[in-house]
């Protein structure tokens, strides 16, 4: 049975970049934020790969990505992401950094999803990352789902399988390195993904070209979105965590082991 999968995902600075905050009480940001190379948010990317797998297993399934980010950056990132698997894009042109409010972001995403003309909510699986690599609040997906009336929600999902009767069997991460296993009778449901179990798919240029034919018009039509501030920031700072590292070189392994053993016992 085909699904309608909507993956919500924003952009995050490339994890290898050095981040430096620039303080402004109303709108803190990152130094050179617009110049920083960006990637599709890592956990949302895992959600997208899982959506691709499900679409392969259930022919007729439609995968759509809804993204709120500065349009120019989104276009750059989509050039890469589009090569991974077939999907359509609904783009919202707005601020994409971490210092935005989860409620305002959720409202914008939910409105974009609700406005999709051919949306069949009875077949809807709402996917996303369980936390972003920017705000890291882990609150947007639940709020989007609530706005869409979805009350079967799962957080930090690592595995989804569809049973013969169409029920969804879901593994969610819980404390202590364990998974909770739940069974949901079927869609609509919201799954906020953790890492899942799929590696990053290899780039497939033909898929990329086919995707970009629909992604480029979607980017051109991206609706500008202004987010309500809602938060008064008092300060932003880098943690003062640089340590005075002692480098131990040219010392026999037995001596190093003795020092480590002593340290562990302290």
């Amino acid at each position, binding site marked *: 049975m085909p699904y309608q999968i909507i993956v919500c995902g924003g952009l*995050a600075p490339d*994890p290898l970049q050095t981040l430096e*905050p620039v303080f402004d009480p109303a709108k803190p940001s990152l130094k050179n934020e617009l110049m920083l190379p960006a990637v599709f948010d*890592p956990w949302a990317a895992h959600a997208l790969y899982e959506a691709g797998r499900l679409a392969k297993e259930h022919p007729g399934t439609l995968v759509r990505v809804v993204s709120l980010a500065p349009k120019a950056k989104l276009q750059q990132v989509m050039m890469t992401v589009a090569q991974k698997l077939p999907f359509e894009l609904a783009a919202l042109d707005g601020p994409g950094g*971490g*210092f935005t*409010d*989860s*409620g305002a972001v*959720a409202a914008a995403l939910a409105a974009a999803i609700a406005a999709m003309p051919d949306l069949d909510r009875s077949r809807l699986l709402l996917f996303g990352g369980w936390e972003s690599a*920017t*705000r*890291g*609040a*882990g609150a*947007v997906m*639940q*709020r989007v789902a*609530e706005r869409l009336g979805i*009350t079967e*929600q*799962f*957080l930090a999902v*690592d595995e989804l399988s569809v049973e013969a009767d169409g029920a969804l*069997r879901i*593994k969610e*991460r*819980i*404390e*202590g*390195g*364990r*998974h*909770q*296993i739940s069974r949901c009778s079927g869609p609509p449901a919201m799954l906020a993904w953790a*890492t899942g*179990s799929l590696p990053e798919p290899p780039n497939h240029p033909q898929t990329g070209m086919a995707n970009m034919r629909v992604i480029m018009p979607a980017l051109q039509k991206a609706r500008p979105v202004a987010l309500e501030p*809602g*938060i*008064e920031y*008092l*300060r*932003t700072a*880098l943690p003062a*965590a*640089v*340590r*005075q*590292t*002692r*480098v*131990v070189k040219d*010392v026999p*392994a037995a001596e*190093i082991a*003795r020092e*480590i*053993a002593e*340290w*562990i016992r302290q």
Partner: protein
Amino acid sequence: MEKILVLLHTEDGQLPPSALETLGLARELGGGFDLAVLGAGAAAAAQHASGGAAKCFAVEGEPFAVSRYATDAAACEALIRASGAPLILAPDTMRFHRALPGVAERLGAAIDTHVVSVSPGGEVQRWYYRQRIEAALRRGQRPWILLVEPGSQTPAALQAGSAPELLNVSCNTRTTVEGFSTPIAGEQTIRPDAPLLFVAGAGWTKKQKDGAVHVDEAAELILDFVRRTQCSLGSSKSLVDLSGEGEAVLPFLTHLHQVGQTGSSPRHRKGLATCCHGEEPHVVGWRFIQERRAVNLDPNCGWVRGKADVVYVADAFEVMRELLKLL
């Protein structure tokens, strides 16, 4: 300080340490507070902890014994409405993290998660960009739900008080909780209470001095160390990802062990990284590790650049062999 609702849930009929930490924070902040508990044995647990609370509420019963969005959200919504407090403090457990953002939406409330500090003046501190930037903030919107990061507060001692008012909550759900699984044997899991985090990096599966790969020996050394020290076992993303790239892997490591940008940020007093380069995406997961040491063959690895207290430039295989003789 405005009135606070301390919203807690039970685990196996008891209040977990994270709940007592949240209660401790509310007591520290001063002012009045209400207490609300949901879950199996909620009424008894609430009475054991309600000393000092102005009002006390509980939701219990079979549907609320398990952690599940629909039932938890319905219960939390009822408890928050019953109290009417403008500020809600709850522990940032997976159960509440799943439920409370949706509850915030229902109540028209604001929510902040991973909160590490709250001041009586309403200043809240939390991390952004995966523990790379810290920020202090304030909000005018009420109700305001704050999910308090476990491990960040001093737990309160239990003080018994009055019996709670039991609320009747009904809710329909299409989800049943079937059970739990631990994907790896107990001795290799992440142990939140362990004093030491041991991180195995990708170097364990690379060619060694003799030009060969020694994955079996690496696995034996790592597991032996974990068994002897009862430490938490973590890995870098690259090591976890090797499985997807068809390379030799340590079979007991999964994405659950991953520490860093797309993994966990565990709280341990000490951390020992081995064969791991200490790149920023991994090291952001070490933000709450107080004492850090690393063993690496590369004297220019990331750990040397102020990310570890001590870096041993040595062969991890040799060091671990010697270390195991001493433990």
